[in-house]
């Protein structure tokens, strides 16, 4: 059936319109809302910072690393939404990578994080809204591992948006 491109586009727009109208009519009663959109920027910074201050030393100890320097800032999620992220790179003691990953995993799960690892050679652990990921990063140097502690991705507006879009590194205290 030959339909002109313009008509197709109009119909598609109308269909999307119909779809969302129908959805919102159906769902008004149940008041669709969700957690991610209602987190405030400051709360996200505070909770992610707290998690990082807890997790990074744990990981550092498990790897036999001496001291960790960590920074934190807002990062984008593929330029569409935003997450707060603490980042540290550590020099681990010499050891077998698999055993070291196990040690890290044990340290984090022991502290109440759930093991959420999906990729070989990583430890990914989550707690509430925070995700911790630990992996060796040989490109950065011998025995160097990286730890990232991230909030989930969400959008912000107004002053908060300015803040997350233009954030700079700041050091993470308590390392």
């Amino acid at each position, binding site marked *: 059936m030959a339909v002109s491109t313009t008509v197709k586009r109009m119909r598609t*727009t109308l269909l999307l319109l119909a779809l969302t109208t129908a959805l919102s009519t*159906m769902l008004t009663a149940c008041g669709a809302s969700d957690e991610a959109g209602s987190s405030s920027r400051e709360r996200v910074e505070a909770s992610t910072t707290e998690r990082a201050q807890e997790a990074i030393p744990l990981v550092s100890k498990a790897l036999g690393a001496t001291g960790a320097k960590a920074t934190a800032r807002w*990062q984008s999620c*593929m330029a569409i939404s935003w997450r707060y992220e603490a980042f540290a790179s550590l020099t681990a003691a010499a050891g077998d990578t698999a055993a070291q990953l196990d040690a890290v995993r044990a340290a984090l799960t022991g502290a109440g994080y759930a093991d959420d690892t*999906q990729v070989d050679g*990583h430890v990914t652990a989550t707690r509430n809204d925070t995700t911790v990921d630990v992996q060796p990063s040989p*490109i950065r140097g011998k025995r160097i591992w990286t730890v990232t502690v991230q909030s989930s991705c969400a959008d912000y507006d107004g002053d908060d948006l300015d803040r997350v879009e233009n954030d700079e590194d700041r050091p993470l205290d308590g390392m």
Partner: protein
Amino acid sequence: MTTIAVPAWLPREPEPQVQESASAVLTEVRAAATAVSDVAEWARANGAPADFSGNAADAADHAVTAFAADTDAVSVALERGALAIDAFLTQMRQRRNEHDALTERRQRLNGDREDLLQRIETATEDQVEALQADAAALRQRFESYHQDLQAWRDRVEADEDSAIRAFAAVDELAEGLAAAQDSTRADTAALAAELRTLGTDTDAVNTWWSGLSQSQRNALLISDPDLVGNTNGIPTGDRDEANRSGVQRDIEYLLGLQASGEDLSASEQRWLDNAQSIEKAAQQVSDSKWEGLGVNAFVMAYQPHAFGGDGIAAVAYGDPDTADHTAVYVPGIMQDGTYIDENGSQALNLYEETVNSMLSEDPPREGAVSTIAWIGYDSPNFNPESMWPWDLGDSAGDVSHTVTEANAEAGGVALSQFVDGLNSTHTDGDQPHLTVIGHSYGSTTSAYAAAGGMDADSLVLIGSPGASEGVHHASDLNMPAGQVFVGAADNDPVSWLGGEDGVLPGSGDDSLGLGQDPAQNDFGATVFAVDDGEEFHGPGGLVDTGFKQNHVNYFDDTNPALANMADVVSGNAGAVVDTGGRTQEAHDYLYDWTGDEVKDHVVDPIVETYEDVRDGVGDAVDGAKDARDDLWPDRWP
């Protein structure tokens, strides 16, 4: 007692003072030269024409005509200065390499000297003769080192003398004016015209550029940085230098306007955002998160006024002209030049993952990598928040923009030409191993490029709303066999949009026009494992969780998608496991979700609330079911 003459210990030779950071001086001088050159061009256009044959005094008294000569003199002087700095920096880079080699040699020699001294200490009389011979040989090697070191120092001094002379030749007004009159000056207008006629033949562009003298290249880079910086086929390093000076020129101009108390217009503000974003994209290699990678950035494209001010921008991490493995990342909707730094950080993440992946192999694999974030097409400015019906009218134009193929098709052509450029500028003979990764709408653009014959080795489509109109199977994408890879999270609603049939059942051919869902099993691509994201409810969840989380997690360290992409990029595609892909249509995911929504939020609550009224329950449930069936029949279409 015999003495054995051992040469003196070799002291450390200080490193040359001039480091890579000195390139900042070159960028500033070029930026200045370019801006003055622009003013000189204005003055020439508004002054006496070059072939004016009237009263010379008239021309001489005319202010703009005199101004043209004055600014031209400044421009030429700065151009000569830039040339001198460029040559000096190139020489100093070479001297630093030579210094490294000499340092290694010095350390070895000192080590050998220590060995000899120790052997002498414990020597017996009959070993003396042999030790004398060893000492003599060592003395010769030391002498040779001294000579080479002195020769190196002489070379450094000669390079410095050369630069000093070059500056001295144009550090006075009169000298600038004389240089402007020099008949051997590069005719940049003619050169620019020549370059333009070469068009999109990137091999020809590359050959032509190599045939120019350094002085000609330097002059053209200053007179036409926008042309040199954005023409495919020009070597990456030169594009980077041209674009950086263009960016600095623009930033200084716009900040100057602001500083003088003027408010920037909306388009000037966007221009400044574009310039500052690409500057940030280049500088972020020094951020605390990324400095450990030790990678350099190259500004490969900078056209802040393109697409009505949205802007074209591209940044490479690692030099694609010398890389063994190159990836071009094409982001999706809502991306423009002001997001190049954020998209750049995805490219950096991919860079780290790719190199780590190679280093983790047994045995570790060496190889240079380059990852490029490229925003070179007109990406629609779809605002997902405007999915509410009362907003949809406003952004309906943008929505239909999203669903039209035209921009993806045009984008595909631009991408293909960019890739041609990368193939032409790669040194060491071979073309690079090149992977194109398209996300979201960028995947449709990439698919258009591939279907149109783009010369890449591998194609990765992630979070794809469609593999472009007219493509029914992976083989339509003209990639080498087995080199089409797809990542699609089950809970990524953008990946529910693909399909050659309708969005809604019973509605005939009303597909969004972006093509088939490439994650389908029968599409024939290798569908790799990804993090499927979180389930969500309601239109709010669709946007906040579906779009703003599940659609944008493909480059997360925690996501198998990133590890799989790194395998493809590094040429280790054999390690990518095919999960088989989807066996239900993309739209069925949408259908299932809306069906679940209706079930969870309408049918079940009714059942619960009215469960003590049996007939009421029965009627309510039936009524709800009928209502649902009217809108959504049981099967497609």
